[in-house]
Each structure stands twice: as C-alpha cells, then as structure tokens.
C-alpha cells in the first residue's frame, strides 16, 4: 500500500517538471533536461518499467 504513495510522489514530480517545461521561455537546454528527467518517471507511472 506504501507503493501507491510512490506513484503519487512520482506523478507530483512529473507535474512539476512539465509545469517548469511549459514556463521555461528562453533556455532551450533546460527545456531538454526537464524532458530527459521525465523519461523514467513517465514510464514508471505507466508501469512500463
């Protein structure tokens, strides 16, 4: 049951990353890095890996 909290934490983090990605206006490198960090989080939330 503790596992559910981990999906919630992962989802919260994913939302923060997406939010920052959308807000980012200038720094292209940062935009790319937000998405890179998102890769494992998204696949974990979808229970792929």
């Amino acid at each position, binding site marked *: 049951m503790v596992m559910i*909290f981990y999906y919630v934490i992962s989802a919260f983090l994913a939302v*923060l990353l997406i939010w*920052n990605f959308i807000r980012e206006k200038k720094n292209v*490198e940062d935009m790319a890095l937000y998405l*890179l*960090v998102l890769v494992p989080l998204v*696949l974990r939330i979808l229970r792929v890996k």
Partner: protein
Amino acid sequence: MSGQIGIILGVMILAYAAAKAAKLSVEISMFLSAVAGGIGGALVRTPSFGQLFRHLVEGSFTYLDVILVFSTATIFMAIISESGGVNYVVRATVRYFYNKRVIALLLLMIIILIPGALTGAGSISLLVVGAPVAMALGLLGIPKRRVAAILFIVAGLSAAAPPVNIWAMILTAGTAIPYVGFELPLGIPVLLLGTFTVLVLGLRKQAATTFEKALKGMPEVPAKMSWWRVLIPFLVFFGSVLAYRIWPFRFPVLGLPLEFTLSAVAAWLVSPKKINILTLSRDTVKRLLPLLATIVVVGMLQQVMTATGVRGLLSFAVISTPLVLLILSLAVVIPVSEGVLTYGAAAVVGIPLIWYLDSIGFHATVAIAGLTLLWPLGDGLPPTALIGRLSVMVSEYKESYWKFLRSTWLPWLLITIVGILMIVFSARLEFLVRWSM
C-alpha cells in the same frame, strides 16, 4: 576487441569535448556523449541500432530512486528554510558559540554530516543545510572560497559516514558481503578527517568581523519560530527512520522518499509562516534540475558504456595493473571514476577490485571502508562534479572553480592517505569491524 572498444570510447570523449566546445552544459554534453557512444557501438552491432533507444531509456532508470530521494529531501529542506527554521538554528549557533570558534566549527561540521550520513548522499547535506551553514561560516570570518571547500569535503565525508554509505552498499550487494560492521571503520575516520578539515580551513579568521556585525548580517527569523517548530519535522524524519530499525517486522517499509515527504508535510503544518507548497516545490525542482538531469544521464551513459564494452575495458585496465601500482593508482582512479560515473563507479571499478583484494588476503569490509573515503573526492571532479558544483552554488562563491578545488588540497591529500592506508592495512584493522558488531 580492445581496439574497437577504444575507438568507441574515443568517440564518446570526442562527442563530449565537441559539445562542451559548443558551450553546451555538462548534462547535455554527457547525453550527447552517450548517444554518440551508442551509435559508435551500433556500427559494430554492440548493441544493434534497434536497441539504442531501449538502452538509453533503460539506463535512465538506473538511479530513479535517487531522483526521488533528492527531490523529496530538497523540498523538505526548502520548507524548513522558508519557514525560517534553518536561520533560527544557525543564529542560535552563532550567538552561543561565536567566541568559542572551535566548538562552533565542530557543531557546524556535525550539522553537515547528519543529513548525508542518514541518506548516503552528500548532496542532500548541501541541499538541506548547506546554505545556512555557509552563511554561518561566512559570519565566522571565513572567505567564500574556503567556505565552499569546507562544505565540499565535509559533505563528501557525510556521504561516506555510517549508517548509510551507498558506495559500500553497492559493493557489498555486488560482492555478497553483508553490509555490517561499517560503523567504526567509517565513523572514526570520518569524524577525525572532518575535524581536521574544519580546523585547517576554518580556524583562521580572515575577514574582520565583530559579534554584533555577525548577528546583524543574519536574516530575520519569524517571531513565532521556536525550537519545537524546528524539531518536529526532524523528529518525524528520524522517528520514521528509527521505527523501521526498532520494529523491522511490524513497521512498514516507507523508504527515504516517503519519509522525507511525511517530514515535509509536518514542516509545512508547523511553519509559523504560510508557505505555498506548489510554487515552492516548482522552484525547488528548477533549482535541482542540473542535478536530476545528471543522475538520469549518468545512468544512460553507464548503460551505453556496458553495452558497448567501454565499461568493461575501463574495469579491465584497473584490474590488470600490478598490485603496488594498483594501490597507489587508487588515489587517482577512484576519484576520477566517480567524476565520470558517480555511484556507478562502485560497481564498475569497485566490485572486481574488492573480489581481487579479498582473494589475496585483504579484509574486504575495511578495504571497502577505505575506498569509500576516496570516492566522495571525485564528486568535485568533472564532468559530473555534483558535490563540487553544489558547494560552490550554496556558498555563493563566484570565482574560478579550479581555485576552489585547489584550496581543498590539504584535506584531500590527508583523506587520500588515510583511505589508502586503510586498504593496505585492512587485515590489521579488522578489529574495528568486530567492535562494530
């Protein structure tokens, strides 16, 4: 085969250098290096082109849990900091111990050691208490470069300190040695070396400050702040960590990220100041981005290096060195491997090394303890330089990175000597392991 792998390694280095020359960030350069290495490998079908994306994606999972720990711990500390708790503690330390410099330095050292010792990550120490401790050290008249140097070395030691030492855990899991008996072989050197570091770098007062001026320089603390408000979130954290240790078969496994989340919620609830948790978390993630990206990319890099044989080649090079030379070369090899691979270095270089040393009569537990004193030094070396970059960031040191790194030379040298002597005399120091159990 080594020629072919050597070329792939060359391609990776070239890609990194080219990306850096194009003024791209360390993280993006490392990512491009991983992609280039993968493509280089695919040309000789190690791995095949079709598997390239899979390897990158799979590698990104290598340190997923570390990402969660870093994020939740930093958000937790950001709340404590925002509520004025950190300033409250540092203010008290400076007020009571301003004229007892040695005690003040030792207390600040302990404050940096604790978060890293509990989580196994020096970066947590810096993210959690780095900024206020840096401020306190500054108020004690220590210039910024030295402040950064103290933070870097002590944070590194905190990662090596028991109870949680991630390098040792990776090594013990990989070599089938129990993770027990590390308390004294790690605890004693960490405390001695930490004390040496803060005294050598911090005892001399350089800037002329007075007590009154120091206190005035400290930021204000909300009036309603009290010891209880500071302590409760930490009690939640230590309580949940200790509860599993005390009742391991009745208390659920919460894991560090959830423990930090619970503590963060507690900190938010007892804060005397209203805190917008969403914007605070968003800004924290923004601040953490280079670190999180580094962790993800290092995982990818590690996966590509293994799939192409580059990792094996490096490991092979270390293991085939003659013993005396090997032990001397650890002073360079261990930190450099950390600079390139971070925690992955423990698996790549450490596991075969420990098997080898164990087989020729070294005491594995003490040797691992010695090695794990050397790894944190590498966290100041590029390309990753995780802890070095954080130390510079939180101490607001703005000049050359190399000048900062050079100022750590004396503790660096001593830590290297102690670590290597622990490995060489591991069999004789075996009593430290026995006394720990």
